[in-house]
């Protein structure tokens, strides 16, 4: 009997395949969006967490952990202070430390941050599951007045190897600068491959270079120009005078991760000067939590999209009920009970939503396969392609439950119609 009712439901759906197909499509699109938003969220989170990897601690002047994370990793905001080079030199000899990457921040170039660092950066910096810094063109700076630019910088300013660039004093995100280090132009020695992280949006020079361009700036103002422009060409700067006196922050990699908390405590209690050490993963998830309202907002919107899709189904089934009153009365006359009619309608809405979900998921995977590389290269967002996660199954279960609940409405109406109509067929 149940099997025969399923047969009838199938025949009936086939008979209305155009409208049912459209209903399935509307559910499919909303499910696709719902799960797609979840995927983008996961991708955003992964990309975010992958901005920096394999770094165990980030050390800066005493301050808030989020602020330290923002200026050291994301190149946002101003550093709270500097670290003396002596302290850095002292800490990096700690036996549990494998490597450090010093950053000296504070200058900019046409809106992009300038980072003073050393070879350690090119060797040890890792992002997104252990990928390292690669050069698209050229190589590390070999001389003091050479620079490496990130992929976005090179693309935005159309830089090629050998181009001369001038750094600006102070952080200027607008690109407008009043004090330029134009007495010491830099030559582009390398262009980094795209990482889709803030690495792409910085200009890299050596720590010595930072020291060099600030020579004579100790009072905070540019030195009085004693050299003519022609004299500046081929300028050589004696290395011994360029020992860095301070850095802004440094990244720490350990031999053994177990030592993280010990070292963090050691740095926080460092006697030389007040320092803050943060664990990047912890600070990143803290920052992500802070951004969660955007995530929740997206979730709410896509939930309502699903609701609208299901309402569309409700409306189309409900409208079809009037045309099908006759059919229901005929079935009633042949022994189908009100419950059978109810079941028939409930089956229909459940079937439509399951079909919609399946089509939606299939469309989503198809879209992911097609658009993933495009999204990755344009937005730096790697959307994961994997089997449905537990959370996504839960979403689908919620959609299914909603569709069953909404399906009860036309089913109940059909049941009432059959009781009211009896065998009298309304034309």
């Amino acid at each position, binding site marked *: 009997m149940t099997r025969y009712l399923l047969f*009838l439901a199938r025949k009936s759906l086939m008979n209305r395949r155009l409208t049912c197909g459209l209903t399935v499509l509307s559910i499919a699109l909303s499910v696709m969006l719902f799960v797609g938003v979840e995927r983008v969220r996961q991708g955003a989170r992964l990309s975010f967490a992958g901005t920096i990897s394999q770094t165990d601690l980030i050390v800066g002047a005493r301050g808030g952990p989020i602020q330290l994370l923002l200026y050291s990793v994301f190149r946002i905001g101003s550093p709270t202070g500097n670290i003396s080079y002596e302290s850095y030199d002292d800490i990096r000899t700690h036996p549990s430390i494998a490597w450090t990457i010093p950053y000296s921040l504070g200058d900019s170039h046409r809106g992009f941050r300038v980072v003073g660092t050393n070879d350690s950066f090119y060797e040890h910096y890792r992002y997104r599951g252990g990928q390292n810094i690669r050069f698209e063109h050229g190589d590390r700076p070999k001389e003091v007045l050479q620079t490496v630019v990130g992929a976005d910088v090179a693309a935005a300013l159309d830089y090629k190897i050998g181009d001369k660039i001038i750094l600006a004093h102070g952080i200027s995100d607008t690109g407008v600068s009043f004090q330029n280090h134009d007495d010491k132009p830099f030559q582009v020695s390398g262009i980094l491959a795209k990482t889709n992280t803030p690495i792409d949006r910085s200009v890299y020079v050596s720590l010595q270079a930072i020291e060099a361009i600030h020579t004579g700036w100790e009072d905070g103002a540019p030195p009085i120009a004693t050299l003519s422009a022609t004299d500046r060409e081929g300028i050589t700067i004696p290395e011994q005078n360029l020992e860095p006196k301070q850095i802004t922050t440094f990244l720490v990699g350990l031999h053994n991760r177990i030592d993280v908390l010990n070292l963090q405590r050691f740095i926080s209690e460092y006697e030389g000067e007040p320092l803050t050490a943060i664990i990047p993963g912890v600070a990143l998830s803290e920052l992500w939590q802070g951004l969660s309202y955007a995530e929740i907002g997206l979730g709410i919107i896509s939930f309502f999209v699903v609701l609208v899709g299901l309402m569309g189904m409700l409306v189309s089934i409900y409208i079809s009920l009037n045309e099908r009153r006759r059919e229901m009365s*005929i079935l*009633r006359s042949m*022994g*189908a*009970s009100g419950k*059978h009619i109810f079941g028939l309608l409930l089956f229909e809405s459940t079937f439509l939503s399951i079909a919609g979900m399946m089509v939606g998921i299939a469309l989503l995977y198809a879209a992911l396969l097609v658009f993933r590389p495009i999204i990755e290269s344009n937005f730096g967002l790697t959307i994961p392609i994997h089997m449905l996660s537990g959370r996504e199954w839960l979403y689908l279960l919620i959609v299914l439950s909603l569709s069953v609940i909404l399906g009860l409405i036309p089913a109940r109406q059909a049941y009432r119609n059959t009781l009211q109509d009896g*065998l009298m067929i309304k*034309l």
Partner: protein
Amino acid sequence: MSTPSAIDIRNLKFRYPNVATNVLDIPELSIKQGQSVFLAGPSGSGKTTLLGIITGILSNHEGSLEILGIKLSELSSSNRDRFRGAYLGYIFQMFNLIPYLSVSENISLPCYLNPERQARLKTSLNEQIQYLAKHLEISGLLDKPVLELSVGQQQRVAAARALVGQPPLVIADEPTSALDTDLRQKFIELLMSETKRNNQTLLFVSHDVSLKPMFEISLALPQINKANA
């Protein structure tokens, strides 16, 4: 008791909920099994209500009602549905068929919905359909979509569906009003000969009294029903 009753009504009173007056008040109505009965029922005479009660779709009546010896009021609503499916064949005025099923699927519908009705078949369902189709002259139409049929053909398919599995009581509610005079005559003859062959009771309801002479017994609902008197 000579012949058992197909329909036996005594002191039946019925009114719809929230309505003060009775729609039906039938002191007595008895139809023997195997009879073909014409019930004249102009609109407003309580015809639809009476058929609703006989088929067990309307319940909560006063008095006694036995269909094929069974008191419908003593059955649960799901058992009434089962009873209707198993023992009654029903033909509507028009638009009788399920539009998305083929002719043979429409005819076999009651047998699938009611296992008892299928169990009553002496031959296979397919042979039964072939047999009915032959007698009702729709043999060539079995695999067609019902929407391609003329109204007269549709009514004969509906008759086949009401007759399949030989339900003891066949009720036809104005089945000929959509047919023209020639087809009307033919349709009733076919219906009559099939029900006679299997000793089925035929209750034929119509407002068209010109059909009256074709039936063994003729009743008029306005005379039986005292509610309007």
